[in-house]
């Protein structure tokens, strides 16, 4: 999430007020407003750090616990990647180069340094991946700019591995059901040699796809999903136990409301909570029968900054020495300026603007949104995680194998029961009555991608 509320200088207390001492340590002068309290710089940093370390602790435990035995089994089956040592956890951080993920990178580095300074082993290895939607294909100048930024990060955090992946690499990924989307030419070629020509054409294919999408919201949505696919793919390639995302409380609240508005309420608990997510394969060349069982073939996705507000993280990146904030690409100032045409906004942008407002005045309400949404149950197609059938879904003919079917685009569980009921409530395709004429191919797609993804692709 690159766009943020205007630079947070507002939370710095005005100097002319009589200097109060920090509400926490009571020794230094309180110069930062942290959730209604005046605190000093050190206490503010500690506060943010504590929120992150707590989540990392939970993750470290999760990786050690039983749920990871299957993961280790998965990793041990991968070629050239021996089973990870019990002591060496390996994580992948998705670095968008926005303030939140940059803050997470800094915090993870602090954590490692701290442990090393104590004479302990590093708690984990970290691979940092930036997925770039710019500089696709031939755009050399953009490429250099992106690589330059990442190179400066690499120099700042020499302990971690850094990598840039371009969005066009999503073309051919087997975690997306290209055939089901009617994009057969996006499937991976069996030969799989990546010469320059092919890279260009991948970028062209992708640009063409984006050009044909029905709206800005659809484009933003697919950009997010593709980025996620690439991060998960990199995590698996690099034998990582978990994917770490820098999403702040604010970002999770935005995600909650925008996914609700995009019709993906069903999969929200999968998206908002931390835990293991299934990773399907739709490869036509894959000889093995489709096995979507999450336990055998999934990845842990964690949001260690889920308890920090975005404005706090922006502040945090300005306080590090030297400030990482200055290393980040500038956010387009027009993003927060007056909107020329509301129609060209995406749903995500609307939510970002909305929560920037709410965050300013009601931070706890923002935090509460993600927290309560997280209480919803994670279900598979009307069946909950323990395999109990949804009360109302008795006598459906779905085979047990199908219970874990995942959407061919967002990879979230499909809600077959919900789809069925929705059809009943609204009448078959009543939304499109009189809108689309003679479109036959849609019918099959419905079975393979979720309601929200269908909306994104078809409008």
């Amino acid at each position, binding site marked *: 999430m690159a766009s943020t509320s205007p630079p947070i200088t507002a939370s710095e207390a005005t100097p002319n007020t009589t200097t109060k001492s920090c509400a926490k340590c009571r020794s230094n002068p309180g110069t930062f407003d942290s959730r209604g*309290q005046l605190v000093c710089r050190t206490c503010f940093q500690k506060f943010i750090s504590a929120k992150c370390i707590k989540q990392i602790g939970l993750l470290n435990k999760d990786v050690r616990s039983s749920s990871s035995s299957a993961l280790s089994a998965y990793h041990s089956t991968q070629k050239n990647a021996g089973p990870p040592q019990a002591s060496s956890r390996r994580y992948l951080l998705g670095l968008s180069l926005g303030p939140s993920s940059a803050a997470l990178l800094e915090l993870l580095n602090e954590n490692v340094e701290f442990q090393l300074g104590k004479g302990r082993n590093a708690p984990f290895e970290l691979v940092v991946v930036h997925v770039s939607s710019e500089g696709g294909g031939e755009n050399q100048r953009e490429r250099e700019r992106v690589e330059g930024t990442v190179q400066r990060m690499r120099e700042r955090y020499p302990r971690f591995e850094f990598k840039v992946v371009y969005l066009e690499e999503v073309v051919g990924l087997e975690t997306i059901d290209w055939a089901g989307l009617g994009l057969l030419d996006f499937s991976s070629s069996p030969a799989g040699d990546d010469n320059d020509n092919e890279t260009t054409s991948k970028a062209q294919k992708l640009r063409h796809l984006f050009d044909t999408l029905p709206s800005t919201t659809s484009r933003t949505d697919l950009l997010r999903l593709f980025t996620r696919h690439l991060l998960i793919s990199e995590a698996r390639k690099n034998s990582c136990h978990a994917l770490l995302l820098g999403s702040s409380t604010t970002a999770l609240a935005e995600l909650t409301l925008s996914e609700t508005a995009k019709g993906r309420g069903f999969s*929200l608990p999968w998206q908002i909570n931390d835990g293991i997510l299934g990773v399907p394969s739709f490869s036509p060349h894959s000889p093995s029968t489709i096995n979507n069982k999450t336990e055998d073939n999934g990845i842990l996705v964690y949001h260690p900054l889920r308890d920090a507000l975005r404005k706090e993280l922006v502040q945090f990146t300005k306080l590090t020495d030297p400030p990482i904030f200055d290393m980040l690409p500038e956010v387009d100032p027009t993003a927060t300026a007056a909107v020329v045409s509301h129609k060209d906004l995406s749903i995500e942008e609307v939510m970002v603007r909305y929560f920037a407002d709410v965050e300013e005045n009601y931070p706890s*309400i923002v935090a509460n949104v993600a*927290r309560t949404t997280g209480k919803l149950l994670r279900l598979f197609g009307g069946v909950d995680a323990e395999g109990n059938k949804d009360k109302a879904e008795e006598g459906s003919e779905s085979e047990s194998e199908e219970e874990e079917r995942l959407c061919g685009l967002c990879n979230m569980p499909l809600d077959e029961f919900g789809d069925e009921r929705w059809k009943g409530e609204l009448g078959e395709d009543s939304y499109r009555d*009189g809108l689309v004429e003679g479109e036959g191919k849609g019918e099959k797609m419905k079975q393979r991608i979720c*309601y929200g993804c269908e909306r994104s692709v078809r409008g």
Partner: protein
Amino acid sequence: MAPTLCAVCKTERANIKRPKNHARVCKGCFITLFEEEVHHTIISSKLFYPGERVAIGASGGKDSTVLASVLKTLNERYNYGVELVLLSIDEGIKGYRDDSLETVKRNAVQYDMPLKIVGYDELYGWTMDQVVETIGKKGNCTYCGVFRRQALDRGAKMLDIKHVVTGHNADDVAETILMNLLRGDMGRLARSTNIVTGDDSSDVKRSKPLKYAYEKEIVMYAHHKKLDYFSTECIYSPEAFRGSARALIKQLERIRPSAILDILRSGEDMARLVPGESASSCGCKGNKSKTPTTAAAEDDGGIGGCGSTGAAGGNEMAAMEKQLRENEAAEGQGLEVDVSKLSLTGKPAETETDGSVPLKPKANSKPVTRQTLGNCKRCGYMSSQEICQACTLLEGLNKNRAQIQI
């Protein structure tokens, strides 16, 4: 350029762009489509049975007027065999309600339906104007909403009717879903998506046949059918959560017209994911387990009672923010040793005195509140509390009045 033809009949000129999906249709086809969609909702949710007496909660506004008109049309077209009655509540708001009631009276003649008007003054001894005089404009919508819910039930009882239909539209429901997400109220979110609240076991059931109808289409329908309705909004309008959610919905609709329906879809699906809530909101799929929805008419999930807004008072968001902060502070108070603080300074963490680093137990611990129904000890009305909301509010009001008189 030849005029675009209607996508449905392909003969008439398409002079309407449906707000719902931007389909281009002619006036006649729009009216038919709109009615047929409401019919589909009624049938798929099995809202009525032949011979049933149904009260239409009629405010004189566009939603309830369209509801009355469509129900009358469909009842005749499809022989529902339903007996329709108009039921109006007189809140006692001068300059708003007295005029709209005149509209309802005309509607009663136009649609040839009996009309019953119940006043707050006769039910509670207070008109809304008097309430506002006493407590001010802030928070008066709480009173109005609570009073109205009961008033409709009591009115229905006077008429010996067990089913009240209301004019809530898709925008209202979507708004309520977003509002309850913002409030973090999953129990209410689940209930608000139900097309029917209350059931056979409670006295009066409520349903919203226009649940899937877009507000803009309702306005269009009223316009093209030349319906007689009253279009002033209530003069006592609040901001807060509902206003906030409403503004969002309007923005989303502009960007992607389907967003309102998509929010409904999300809300219905999420309702199934709320721990402990009953599964389905529609009757079309063999619901063998008739678990009574504990949320009866007393609480329909926070759906606004009045056409315009209807949230609790003005500074609702600020109040909630305060509450949440207090909770956080309380939970953080010395519950856990903060191991994580070691990291930054290398010094062991000082003991926290102010509890400002809230280390909560894992988020999932607080259960979603459920309701069990009983009757109010004071007025005998169904309530999940010992004393129903209306009586509690009345008690406060009456105390106030007594003091003023002294």
